[in-house]
């Protein structure tokens, strides 16, 4: 009579025991690692600098070890969602930050990040590497955010597809509304996708008041709108087996195509239409509420050291902010940095972002 009851109590106890074991083993791990820190160097003198960022951010291991050694710090990454989600989380917890540095504010979010009272102002004297950064990247007038890298968003095209048909690829933004290129372009929605948003802003920056007419032209010319970069690139782009040979992507997509093919491809099929490129600049700042403002500022300066800058192309597929940082062969060969990118003004973006998106939605959706 008590058999099943005893057994189910047993099951319950076992579950609890398992849970407790799991919790304990976690504790054990934590104390192990804190032990290691203590052995490796006095914890009191080795502050941990936590970089809050988005989840696809990659920190090169060798660079991390070098910076930790040089500055006497331990670097940790605390990553959440995509760039906008991570920034929203940081703004919602402003003043009680989860780490010391936030990385990943881009120029489309710059003004909002500054308005969120998240960052402490930096003295340029504490970030000597800023002297190496070109003027046009120094977009934050409040002196809180330091540009780290640049990732131009461009229209890419499938060279093979155009060559097979003897069709000249488009050479400008306006060409995309040409009936010659009907049903060939896929873009991302600025509502759900960051490259989509940058591309929308590029059209406004380049065409001004004619941007809405341009988008109407794209719709009339059969533009396809994807929800995400993945959707556009993997499902609709001809290089991945889709039916659209023109795609909004990155200037670094051709080398990425080679890199991620894992040896299957040595020359990319994709190439970039340079005149369509607009720079997405990524910034870092020291979070207000950090207990290690000085060390964190040193880490930000280290982000602009040559070693850190040169690690960026093959980890995050962006270009270094420093012009004197060398780019890997894959980049110099297949992704020369666009000579003149469309300039996006953060102040204008903040003021008109919602309006542009609303207009876009009424035209395209």
């Amino acid at each position, binding site marked *: 009579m008590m058999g099943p009851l005893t057994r189910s109590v047993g099951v319950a106890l076992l579950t609890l025991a398992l849970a407790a074991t*799991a919790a304990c083993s*976690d504790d054990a791990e934590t104390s192990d690692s804190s032990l290691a820190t203590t052995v490796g160097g006095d914890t009191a003198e080795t502050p941990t600098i936590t970089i809050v960022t988005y989840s696809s951010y990659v920190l090169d291991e060798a660079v991390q070890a070098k910076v930790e050694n040089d500055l006497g710090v331990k670097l940790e990454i605390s990553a959440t969602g995509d760039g906008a989600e991570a920034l929203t989380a940081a703004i919602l917890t402003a003043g009680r930050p989860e780490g010391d540095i936030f990385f990943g504010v881009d120029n489309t979010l710059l003004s909002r990040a500054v308005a969120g009272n998240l960052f402490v102002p930096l003295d340029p004297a504490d970030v000597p590497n800023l002297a190496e950064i070109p003027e046009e990247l120094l977009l934050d007038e409040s002196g809180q955010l330091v540009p780290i890298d640049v990732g131009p968003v461009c229209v890419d095209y499938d060279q093979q597809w155009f060559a097979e048909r003897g069709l000249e690829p488009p050479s400008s933004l306006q060409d995309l509304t040409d009936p010659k290129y009907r049903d060939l372009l896929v873009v991302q929605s600025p509502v759900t996708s960051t490259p989509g948003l940058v591309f929308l802003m590029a059209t406004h920056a380049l065409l001004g008041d004619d941007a809405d007419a341009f988008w109407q032209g794209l719709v009339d010319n059969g533009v396809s709108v994807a929800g*995400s970069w993945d959707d556009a690139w993997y499902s609709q782009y001809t290089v991945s087996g889709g039916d659209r040979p023109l795609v909004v992507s990155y200037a670094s997509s051709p080398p990425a195509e080679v890199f991620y093919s894992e040896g299957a491809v040595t020359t990319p099929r994709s190439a970039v239409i340079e005149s369509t490129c607009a720079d997405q600049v990524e910034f870092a700042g020291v979070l207000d509420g950090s207990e290690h403002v000085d060390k964190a500022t040193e880490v930000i300066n280290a982000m602009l050291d040559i070693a850190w800058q040169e690690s960026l192309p093959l980890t995050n597929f962006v270009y270094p902010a420093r012009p004197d940082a060398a780019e890997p062969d894959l980049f110099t060969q297949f992704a020369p940095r666009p000579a003149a990118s469309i300039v996006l003004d953060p102040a204008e973006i903040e003021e008109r972002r919602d309006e542009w998106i609303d207009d876009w939605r009424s035209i395209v959706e």
Partner: protein
Amino acid sequence: MSRSRLIAGAVAVLAGAAFYGWPLVAIAQRSLSGVAGRAGLSMGSVGDVFSDPRIGRLALISVGQCVVSTLLVTVLGVPVAWVLARLRFRGRRAMSAMVMVPFVLPTLTMAGAMIAVAGGLPRSQWVRLALIIAAHVSFNLGIMVRSVSAAISAVPPSLEQAAATLGRSPVRAALGTTISAVRGAIASAAIIVAVFCLTSFGVIVALGGASIGTIEVEIWFLTTRTLDLGRAAVLAGTQLVVVMVLVFAYQRIRSERFGRAAHPARPLRTSLDRRLVAGCWAIVGVVSGLPIAALVVRSLRGPDGWTWSNYGVIVSAGELGRAGGTGGVRGLDALGYTLGAALVATVVALAVSIPVAVVASRDDRVGRWFEHAMIVPLAMSAATLGFGFLVAFSGPTLDLRGRWIFVPLVQAAAAIPIVVRVVLGAVRGVDRSLLDAAAVSGAGPWRRLVAVIWPAVRRPAGVAAGFAFAMSVGEFGATVFLSRQNQPTVAILIGRLLGRPGETNLGQAMALSVVLGLIAAVSVVVVDRSMSDGPTF
């Protein structure tokens, strides 16, 4: 009884406040005041939202896909539930487990499976909408099948047999007796399915692309993209109200009480029985099996054709992903954390749900109030829950960010409403006369709990634990805001892998998804086995 009910009530209220009240207040407070220079909630933003024709269109899509998905789940799920509850046949456990597997898959994976089944993302908006509905049906069929089959097995088959003996066709006999007796359970499951479809996010974004949006996607957009927390609050609030209306509607039609005993299934006797089983295999095969098969096939593909390497890397000491996309996380570590977190989430969910169910089980005003209140959190959008937790538990006194327990807590919060509903049905089924008899004969509250209540809720508690575990293993929407780079769950890891290009990343993501699916299947089988015998009290 009233003192123990008071204690249970206090526990329930405290837990509700900690899990939902506090996070909701924290996020609502910021919505009212606005952040980063954005205006907050005002009467103006309420008016704006309701007069926006686009919002109207989004609402139409939200409700439309939700209604169609729920109807399909009901029509397909109830026959399968009946067959699983009434008939004993080879492969019954396999069918029961298979139907639950899609429920645990992360939304991104399900979207990937649907794209694979469709042979690429279709261009037509209508086909995309159909894919979204297909994904929702696949996800939710298990909820309908398992909760309804539990209810059916509690209904004595004798009525059905009597009706059949009196000359009604077996199908009509079942419809007229058993199915009609469990219509409350069907409605209850349908409401939960409807709420899931209404608040679905990842599937809509991945399959709908830009052209198909819903209110839930708009809440996420307003929160993370435009930081317009005021308008987001208006929409989130409206969504909550809609769900509450649904729940009240359900309350009106709910009528029956479940019995306690599970009646044994009978062997197949007629050709109709065999045809029914075959039909259910067809349903489960297409709805649950096809997406799983697509995943398995994809997980076995590498750059050079068929390979086991995607699985090899999960159990090896090597780093997942290519070019450091996963931040040096090893597959086994993520798997260990996922299982540990899901176990803790299950224990927490049960610990909170049982007192709530005990309070809500009494059919009086307080009981009904609790029952209604516990459905509402289901309608909280994942973004609201995730950001709410983040803001609420990052204070100077209690900062859980980066702590091991943070993720299981939010997973428990997501699972509790479901667990309460499953346990509640069982507690209600406890024979009141038995309790009274026990009280008269001098048994204290503890003795009554052990001797009367526990045997009756044991099986449903097991089923509920299975749901909670499965939901926690696959939870993505809220976990994504709380999990940390060096300690992701498998679902989060899959999201990261899918976010980076390349065959290897995709293959590994699919392999991890298959592993998650296996875990779900195994947990369901284990629950079934340990709970298969009826209470013997």
